[in-house]
């Protein structure tokens, strides 16, 4: 199948818009991949209420991803309209289902395995904190579509942040067992947080310098960790690469699951 949407095929998109498309895909991929991860809990949550909660968050994230993919597709098609129409045109579906692992620009944190409930809660908390400050900043972006999606999503993200903070506190400051599991989750995930604050080339080009979000993020994480009787690790080697397409081994497995149907039966609809 033709991979019309790979980076090098953006050749007809003027450089500035090329960076913009890359950035929008980065935002979309973050939400889609974390949404897909959370959805893996569907039917497996520790109790029914929390099963519903995590899949509701998944739904919000996938909704955000759809809005960003629709916008990216619109920009791509503006510059390289496909005369044949149909499959040749970019769409929210083609961007989610037909790009390869290297074309995905989500941060590494989003693709990390669910592990136990502690690990899923900590991943959500670390990401929601980042997403909260990022979207608050993006609300005033000069690109009004990006700003609109950020403004809209921020309400949902605030809810996710409050809920996941409560879980980190409950488990961190809970029983000996839950505390032990939370320590393990911190150990497992912390090295994937550094990348969030290192701007990728497309972020630099668009003057979205995520480094400045780090202080707010760290302050919030410190406050919650304090209450959760957890210690913020120091001197940890930080992994990076997800934002530019170099992923951990986990993304391939996520995509093989997520994209299976469209890869096996191209254009399948029901």
């Amino acid at each position, binding site marked *: 199948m033709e991979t019309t949407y790979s980076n090098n095929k953006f050749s007809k998109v003027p450089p500035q818009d090329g960076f913009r498309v890359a950035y929008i895909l980065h935002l979309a991929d973050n939400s889609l991949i974390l949404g897909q991860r959370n959805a893996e809990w569907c039917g497996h949550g520790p109790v029914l*209420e*929390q099963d*519903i*909660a995590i899949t*509701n*968050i998944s*739904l*919000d*994230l*996938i*909704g*955000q991803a*759809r*809005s960003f993919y629709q916008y990216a597709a619109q920009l791509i098609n503006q510059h390289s309209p496909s005369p044949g129409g149909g499959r040749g045109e970019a769409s929210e579906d083609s961007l989610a289902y037909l790009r390869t692992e290297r074309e995905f620009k989500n941060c590494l944190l989003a693709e990390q395995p669910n592990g136990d409930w502690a690990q899923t809660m900590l991943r959500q908390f670390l990401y929601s904190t980042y997403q909260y400050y990022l979207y608050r900043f993006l609300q005033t972006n000069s690109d*009004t*579509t990006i*700003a*609109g*999606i950020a*403004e*809209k*999503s*921020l*309400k*949902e993200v605030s*809810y996710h942040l*409050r*809920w996941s903070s409560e879980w980190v506190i409950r488990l961190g400051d809970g029983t000996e067992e839950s505390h032990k599991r939370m320590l393990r989750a911190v150990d497992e995930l912390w090295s994937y947080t550094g990348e969030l604050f290192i701007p990728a080339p497309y972020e630099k080009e668009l003057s979205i310098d995520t480094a400045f979000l780090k202080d707010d993020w760290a302050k919030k994480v410190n406050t919650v960790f304090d209450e959760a009787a957890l210690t913020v690790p120091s001197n940890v080697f930080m992994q990076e690469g997800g934002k530019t397409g170099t992923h951990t081994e986990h993304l391939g497995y996520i995509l093989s699951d997520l994209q299976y149907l469209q890869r096996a039966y191209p254009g399948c609809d029901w």
Partner: protein
Amino acid sequence: MKTSAIDKKTLYAYLEEIKDPEVPVLSIIDLGIVRDIRMNDDDELEITITSTYTGCPAMDMITASIRTELATLGFKKIKVIQVHSPAWTTDWMSAGGKRKLQEYGIAPPDKRFSTPKDGVECPLCHSSNTRLVSEFGSTACKAWYQCNDCKEPFDYFKCH
């Protein structure tokens, strides 16, 4: 049908017939998701809507219902636009909508409970002796409660 011959009030009355598929007592007007109605040149009717939550699966169905309803009434050119900004808020829900929600058994949004906590009034027995079961419920827009007096579980439409 000549759209120019019809006033907005009539058009709003038509849209009042379209219900939220997840909460069938509420129309899309009650919900406040219809942001604008415009009659463009060439008899095109343009309806601007906004989603409650970004992932709300009802949006595609609502868009289709708007098209069907208006086509049935004889409108030939119908354009439905979805906007993100300004972000939807439960403040846009009509007073009638809130009353209908309560009668249906869903506690309407209440500013005192913008962060869900115990005490939302039970829509069935009206007791405030209720407890929050989960901040998330059967759809993105609801939280889950139980009444300590009549013991019935119920949904609360979250402030958003």
